């Protein structure tokens, strides 16, 4: 079973989830873009800084070459002094050396053919690397242009040869790691400097940024540092941790805000739906009330109309008690006027008169009730009593028309929750129709039988006659409004009966009795037997 409130709630929940998904997507996208941009900016900055530094190395090389092998070469001591000064200011230059590349193996410690290398000045002395394996390459390098050699342990050598005829060269050992100052190191990225494909520097990202989601391509920055022969490749990699892409705090805050909005929306929707439902219900109730009011009016008009038909019978019904009253009163008067009035007899007569007057009053009340247009009032009623009332109203009329009335009332009387007057009207209508049919057919020994019975949870009132019955073509149209077989009929009687019976959750069926004649059955829900008598639940 779906609660009427479920829909707005579902809508609210769906909107909330959609908002969360949208938030995550947008957040991931903007974060990723921002992180990539950040990486790019950092990368460019680092590239610029490293390029500048690398360019400085070349400047140092040039300075030292010029100093050591110029037109007026400086003394070794002066060269050392400059070197020391450089080493002091540039800690990344781990070692500086002025070397002599002996082509003929004239070195003091040499004798080796194919070129040797001899340190002339080294700062710090003895702290460098063994240049001997590099000698052939150094000897082969173009003068005036720096060459780079891997030196292991994150270092590389930068060498430059002095112009002809000098056999001198200057070598710088660069600690690549120190090309990036500690404060410049981006904690969020994995930084690498590589030389000819071999890593020189490898600075991993901080632990918080070490790993990221696998479903997004992480931003990557790569740029070659082309500083006079030092072809270093700077690359930055940034992983995308989920916590950065979608910051949990913001997600939570958004979820809360969106949840509140969705709840408000769902509340609004449900309020609107409730208002709409109640509006629809109100309108339906109004329409029902209007219809019921019209039906009640029609029922009343129909009763007043029927009253006219009953008038002569009712007049007779009233004439009887009046006749008795008048006669007895006159008799009493005569007795009172006698010489010795028989008071006992007089008061007895008056007693009877009082009873008689009440009997007349009851008939008048019955008429008044039947013709009244007070609002229908449902209450528990004995069906036998309803039948008795209708019989009292119609008896004389039927007698006059030579129609016998046969009653077969169940005992104990079945009870139903109905409006007594309206149910009387239904019966009266059925009796009237039967009487009209009997009269029109000129049946001898015309008879109308009325029976009440209880069957299961239902109470039935059966009105049957021994007339010609209902023809097959009339039967299906019987309860259709304005359908009539009578010359002066409106065709509303049975349709009204149906309305009145259905109002109290009953039904009315028409058919022909086994032995001929029409048979109408009014079925009503039987009022529970265990309950006390009298008006009770059922009023709406």
């Amino acid at each position, binding site marked *: 079973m779906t609660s009427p409130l479920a829909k707005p709630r579902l809508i609210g929940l769906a909107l909330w989830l959609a908002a969360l998904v949208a938030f995550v997507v947008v957040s991931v996208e903007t974060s990723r873009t921002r992180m990539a941009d950040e990486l790019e900016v950092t990368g460019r900055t680092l590239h610029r800084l490293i390029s500048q530094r690398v360019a400085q190395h070349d400047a140092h090389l040039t300075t030292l070459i010029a100093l050591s092998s110029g037109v007026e070469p400086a003394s070794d001591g002066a060269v050392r002094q400059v070197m020391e000064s450089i080493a002091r200011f540039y800690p990344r230059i781990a070692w500086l050396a002025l070397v002599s590349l002996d082509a003929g193996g004239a070195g003091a410690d040499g004798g080796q053919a194919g070129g040797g290398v001899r340190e002339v000045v080294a700062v710090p002395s003895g702290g460098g690397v063994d240049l001997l394996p590099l000698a052939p390459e150094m000897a082969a390098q173009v003068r005036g242009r720096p060459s780079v050699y891997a030196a292991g342990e994150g270092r590389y050598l930068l060498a430059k040869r002095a112009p002809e005829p000098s056999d001198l060269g200057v070598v710088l050992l660069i600690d690549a790691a120190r090309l990036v100052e500690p404060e410049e190191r981006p904690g969020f990225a994995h930084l690498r400097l590589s030389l000819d494909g071999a890593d020189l520097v490898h600075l991993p990202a901080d632990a918080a940024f070490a790993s990221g989601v696998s479903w997004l391509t992480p931003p990557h920055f790569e740029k070659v540092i082309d500083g006079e022969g030092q072809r270093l490749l700077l690359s930055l990699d940034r992983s995308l941790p989920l916590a950065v892409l979608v910051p949990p705090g913001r997600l939570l805050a958004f979820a809360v805000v969106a949840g509140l909005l969705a709840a408000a929306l769902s509340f609004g929707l449900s309020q609107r739906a409730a208002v709409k439902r109640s509006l629809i219900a109100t309108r339906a109730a109004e329409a029902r009330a209007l219809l019921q009011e019209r039906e009640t009016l029609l029922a009343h008009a129909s009763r007043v109309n029927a009253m006219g038909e009953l008038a*002569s019978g009712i*007049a*007779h019904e009233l*004439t*009887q*008690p*009046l*006749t*008795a*009253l*008048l*006669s*007895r009163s*006159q*008799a009493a008067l*005569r*007795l009172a006027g006698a010489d010795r009035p028989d008071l006992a007899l007089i008061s007895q*007569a008056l007693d*009877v008169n009082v009873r*008689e007057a009440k*009997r007349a009053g009851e008939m008048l009340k019955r008429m008044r009730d039947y013709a009244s247009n007070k609002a229908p009032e449902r209450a528990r009623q004995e069906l036998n009593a309803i039948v008795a009332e209708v019989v009292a109203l119609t008896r004389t009329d039927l*007698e*006059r028309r030579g129609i016998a009335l046969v009653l077969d009332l169940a005992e104990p009387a079945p009870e139903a929750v109905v409006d007594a007057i309206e149910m009387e009207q239904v019966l009266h209508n059925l009796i009237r129709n039967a009487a009209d049919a009997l009269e029109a057919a000129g049946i001898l020994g015309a008879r109308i039988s009325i029976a009440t019975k209880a069957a299961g949870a239902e109470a039935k009132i059966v009105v049957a006659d021994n007339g010609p019955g209902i023809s097959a073509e009339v039967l299906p149209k019987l309860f259709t409004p304005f359908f009539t077989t009578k010359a002066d009929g409106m065709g509303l009687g049975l349709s009204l009966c149906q309305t009145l019976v259905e109002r109290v959750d009953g039904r009315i069926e028409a058919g022909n009795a086994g032995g001929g004649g029409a048979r109408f059955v009014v079925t009503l829900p039987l009022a529970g037997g265990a309950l006390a008598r009298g008006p009770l639940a059922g009023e709406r």
Partner: protein
Amino acid sequence: MHKVYLVDDDEAVREALAFLLSTYGIAAETFGDPQTFLAHVQEDRPGVLVVDLRMPEVSGQQLHQKLAERGIDWPTIMITGHGDVAACRRAFKAGIQDFLTKPVDGEVLVEALQQGFASLDARLEKREARALLARLTEREREVLDMVARGWASKEVAAALEVSVRTIDAHRAKIAEKLGTSSVAEQVRLALIS
């Protein structure tokens, strides 16, 4: 005083009317329906009928007819709940004594009854006269008619071409059969029949 037969399907009406009539010293026998009355009625207990026009099964009108079929022509006063002109006309044509509408005034009813009693007396007398006259032979009747015209025996004898003695013998027979030797009484009987 004759009886009153009251036929009405309403017990209260029957009882009240009988009570009212009793104060006038008129005895009324009441019946709830025409059939009971028809079963009960005896020709030798004549009375005036007070009958409700409209009753189930057999109406007052029909009762009147059924009684007539049985040779009972007692005066009938029809009472009805409503003054239906057509019913009233039919009733009078059928020889109804009176036609009263309910509620019936006591005085009016008693007056109608008294007329009814007189009428009943007359009818009974007439019936009696007829019965007596029926005992006469044709010749005796002829003689009586002539006597009634005031003729003397001699004139009658001349007219009938018989002797005066024969006529006298007829007249003696007539007196014997009618139970009276008074000529005036004999003539009255002849006239009312």
